[in-house]
């Protein structure tokens, strides 16, 4: 018996990727009955599903974000352990994106599809590394799906930051970093580079840093970047590193910082015009997504004859994958955010 074609049992619906023989979605973009969630970023993990299966870490992150959701049936999955939902077996594998992030292997009558969610291939001290899983169809995003996106070594970017801190001792370096994943990775990278001073946090980052610590990720001395006197910059932040969500820096909150060097940690910082538009003074090209070379390398590694691309620079990735003799198809899904965690 030949295996069914993947497009015969997985479909793109307005609610997201729907797996018919199991009657569930993967990373639905709105509340549904049953969902398998790859990771805790808000565009992948939404509130209000009746039943959720994900890694224990992802469930914990969702609880921090959305509260307990007592009505919801939750199932924690260990990486590599198989779960049957209807006529589909579901297995999670690490995606290397953020704490608890997973790829979802879906098997149905011998047909294997991997939904990778968001992933990266670089070493990251705050989460388990990506594992390539051979499959018939590999479902990938393409946020950085253009050959201009090639992330440099994150150690060089951290060195750039520390060099700037040394050069401008009377200023404060404030790094725009998303609350889940990027913030903790930045802290861990700074610690690896030997920065052992306290790192100051905007309030919105505190809970998730606590959660990372509870999962055994060492982040060193973290302190709240609370206001001093209203509207008066805090002189004791001079020479220090402060982390905040990007939106807070441009906001009134930013005024407590003494003459800040505004930094932003994101793969988008590779393109100068983008960094300039955002008023960034020190761009740090540090991303939790695969860059162009890694997208192509991953397709080779999983050796899938067919690739589906959920969102991003789809046409370029389709073009490049097709040139290697594989089939590639753009799903053009809406509802995924290209900024968070980028």
């Amino acid at each position: 018996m030949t295996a069914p074609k993947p497009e015969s049992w997985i479909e793109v619906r307005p609610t997201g990727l729907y797996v018919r023989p199991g009657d569930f979605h993967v990373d639905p973009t709105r509340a549904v009955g049953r969902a398998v969630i790859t990771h805790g970023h808000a565009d992948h993990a939404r509130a209000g599903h009746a039943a959720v299966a994900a890694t224990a870490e992802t469930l914990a992150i969702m609880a921090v974000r959305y509260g307990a959701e007592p009505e919801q049936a939750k199932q924690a999955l260990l990486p590599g352990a198989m779960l049957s939902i209807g006529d589909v077996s579901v297995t999670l594998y690490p995606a290397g994106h953020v704490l608890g992030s997973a790829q979802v292997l879906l098997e149905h009558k011998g047909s294997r599809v991997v939904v990778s969610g968001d992933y990266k291939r670089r070493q990251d001290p705050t989460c388990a590394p990506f594992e390539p899983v051979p499959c018939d169809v590999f479902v990938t995003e393409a946020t950085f799906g253009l050959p201009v996106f090639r992330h440099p070594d994150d150690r060089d970017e951290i060195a750039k930051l520390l060099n700037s801190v040394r050069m401008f001792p009377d200023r404060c370096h404030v790094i725009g970093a998303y609350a889940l994943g990027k913030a903790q990775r930045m802290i861990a990278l700074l610690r690896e580079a030997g920065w052992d001073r306290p790192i100051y946090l905007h309030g919105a980052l505190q809970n998730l840093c606590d959660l990372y610590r509870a999962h055994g990720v060492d982040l060193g001395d973290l302190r709240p970047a609370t206001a001093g006197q209203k509207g008066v910059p805090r002189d004791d932040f001079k020479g220090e590193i402060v982390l905040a969500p990007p939106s807070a820096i441009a906001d009134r909150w930013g005024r407590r910082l003494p003459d800040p060097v505004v930094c932003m940690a994101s793969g988008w910082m590779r393109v100068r015009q983008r960094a300039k538009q955002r008023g960034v003074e020190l761009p740090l090209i540090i991303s939790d997504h695969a860059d162009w070379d890694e997208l192509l390398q991953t397709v080779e590694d999983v050796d899938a004859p067919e690739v589906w691309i959920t969102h991003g620079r789809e046409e370029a990735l389709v073009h490049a994958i097709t040139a290697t003799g594989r089939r590639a198809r753009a799903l053009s899904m809406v509802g995924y955010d290209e900024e968070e965690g980028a």
Partner: protein
Amino acid sequence: MKPFAALLDRLIYTPSRNAKVALIAEYFRQAPDPDRGWGLAALTGGLDFKGVKAGTVRGLAMERVDPTLFAWSYDFVGDLAETTALIWPERLSNRAWPGLSEVVDRLSGAQRSEAPEIVADWLDTLDATGRWALLKLITGGLRVGVSARLAKVALAAYADAEPAEIEELWHGLEPPYTELFAWLDGDGPRPSLEDKPVFRPAMLAHPLEEGEIAGLDAAAYVAEWKWDGIRVQISSRGGETRLYSRTGDDIGRAFPDVLDHVTFEGVLDGELLVVIEGEVRPFNELQQRLNRKTVTGAMLKKYPAFVRLYDILFDGREDLRALAFSERRNRLEGFYARAAPRRMDVSQVVEFRDLAELEALRVSSRGTATEGLMLKRQDSPYVAGRPKGLWYKWKRGPLTLDTVLMYAQRGHGKRSSFYSDFTFGAWRSSPETGEDEVVPVGKAYFGFTDEDLKHLDKWVRDHTLHRYGPVREVERGLVLEVAFDSVHRSPRHKSGVAMRFPRIARIRWDKPPGEADRLETLERLIE
């Protein structure tokens, strides 16, 4: 190349002048000789590579990259040099980066046809930042927001020297400025200026504040008109003549009509103007000839340049700067009678009995091509910079207009969390619909106190209509009284007019926006 690439990569994002100075000074500490001198030349606009154009760069990229992917990438990035730098396939290479001096030497020594291959070889060696910096450097125009003047200020900061000392030497030196660095580092003698038409740092005036007028000893001062052109210095020595702006930029190439007839030796201070049949034309006409590398015959005819002389610093090779103004003035008149330079005259002294008469003259001068009066102490030597108490500029009161706030943009550095750059407009009836609309007439980012700024920022946040990146469009609900020096026609602006030196004079929280001024009011003020 590495320190230089890192420098450019920081400068392009750095808005604050002080931070730029710190970054450039750090570069002079990090980079070796003669690389740092070539870096200085690049920052001051003194490097020009002829063999490499945008087309060369595109051609190189096309040999290495899928053209379809390149086209999509270029669409996304929006800059050819940057797209090429980012997309260039990386090879693991242990070769050392070329130094800046190697880049200069090899490219200037190469045939035009050899250049692409040399550049491709470097691109294979460098990383993305290095490739970007190299392509910016060799295709011309770094555009990192650093003027020649700022680069020299940074050099002074590096060596703990006075900018005026560097300025004085600058035009007698050539890249890679090895003797200059040696002197600044204390490893060599001061470079000699013999036989070179160098720039001599200019003496500048203080604005005369309202409160100072009464206490002024009028009899000690000479008055002249403050002509509305640009301050220049003509420097001629050893058969060469240069025309410098007051900051020492060589602007002579665009003004052959002034320079071609110079036969004297000396250094003169004056105002560059457009003068037709003895009449000084509005600043706007001079503007047509500024910021150009070359000039056409038609421009020379339509906007003939002229220099009105204020002062003499050197007569022949005799340094007159220590003499009193009144003595220099005699020397200037004597020089003018003797040399009779073409397209120049001597600025008139304005006779006055007392300050009241001078005040009346100043006020009645609106509509002439002057900005007000200059007051110079008769006994003042010619001192570089802006010394206190010697020279004053006494400008006419500004014009004002009640405008409506339209857009606000976030500032930089200390102001990065404030909406501090304001675009304002005046009412007119729309050419399409006939309905009243506000059309932008200018932009200002100063004139208000920190306290005002807090209120403005809050108002902007509370009355936002749309957001475009760092810019917010606001409701037409706040009147700003704007002061400006003059207004002229400008086809580049939607309103057809542009203000000179606009600043916010008052925030009219009290005034209904419907009562703000109309565009026609502004048009009537065009001189």
